[in-house]
């Protein structure tokens, strides 16, 4: 591809800065510990040995928003919880992403309820929605890989 294909194996790989930055962001994307309801159980299962999210460099659930890149909103967000969620999101350093896990935080859930925010996208911008009630760990991992694809497509001029 690059210069190495013409000069033989010099122990050098050439690539673009964009790709290196995006690659490093996807390979150590630390999620924030933010389990709100039953989806959190599936999230824990996704972390544990059978599914093992640490394959993707994200075995660390950070308890502090200041150390995390990804907020997996796992569960229903009540109207009382909504300001807390927004505050934690604001405390996360850029760049940051949000995965809405499950039906409750994607669209308000399968029941009409006065206490639940109809979709967490009313409070924070969401990158990936994962459907399911609750989604299986495979579905969550698929959502995260989808997010990785999205991040790999980011351009340097959009970083800002």
């Amino acid at each position, binding site marked *: 591809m690059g210069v190495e294909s013409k000069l033989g194996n010099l122990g050098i790989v050439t690539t673009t800065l964009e790709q290196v930055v995006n690659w490093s962001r996807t390979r150590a994307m630390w999620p924030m510990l933010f389990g709100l309801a039953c989806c959190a159980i599936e999230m824990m299962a996704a972390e544990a040995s059978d599914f093992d999210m640490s394959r993707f460099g994200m075995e660390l659930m950070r308890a502090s928003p200041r150390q995390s890149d990804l907020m997996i909103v796992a569960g229903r967000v009540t109207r009382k919880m909504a300001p807390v969620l927004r505050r934690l999101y604001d405390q996360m350093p850029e760049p940051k992403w949000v995965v809405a896990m499950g039906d409750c935080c994607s669209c308000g859930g399968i029941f009409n309820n006065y*206490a639940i925010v109809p979709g967490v996208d009313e409070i924070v*911008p969401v990158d990936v929605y994962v459907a399911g009630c609750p989604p299986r760990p495979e579905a969550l991992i698929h959502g995260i890989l989808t997010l990785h694809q999205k991040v790999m497509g980011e351009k340097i001029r959009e970083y800002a």
Partner: protein
Amino acid sequence: MSVVEKAVGKLQERFGKAVLEVHEFRGQTTVILQGDVLNDACTLLRDDPELSFGYLAALTAVDYWPKEPRFHVVYQLYSHDHAQFLGLRVPVNGEDPHTPSLEPVFVNANWHERELYDMFGIQFDGSSDLRRILMPLDWEGHPLRKDYPLGYEEVQFSFNFDEIDRRKPYAKE
């Protein structure tokens, strides 16, 4: 004579007409009382050594809207000595619902009464700290009332997706 029967007898003897009704359903006895004698009745049930209903196991309410009296506040007392439950009920009017707080007799009534205030809007006179406990402090209305509207969000199908999408408030960066 069981402890519950004794308790009902003593309540009727002491409070007379303030005991509005006694009924039994599947082995569970419930006494309907006037609100103003509730604290005295609970003190009697708690302190009488023959009864010793020393534990307020549950405190909740029922909304019978549109009937009057609209609410029933339900108290479940438990006697550890005799392993028996006794139910008490206090009818409360729907217009400006007021009933005395049970906190002077059973301290754990505090949080239960806050929940009832939050969910049904029943005022407990004499409560030390009557605030909302579950809903946000600035919430309007009392969600477990029968006339409280359900939170309603229209479901997005393919035919009305765009229309709902247009007025749904999304977060901005």
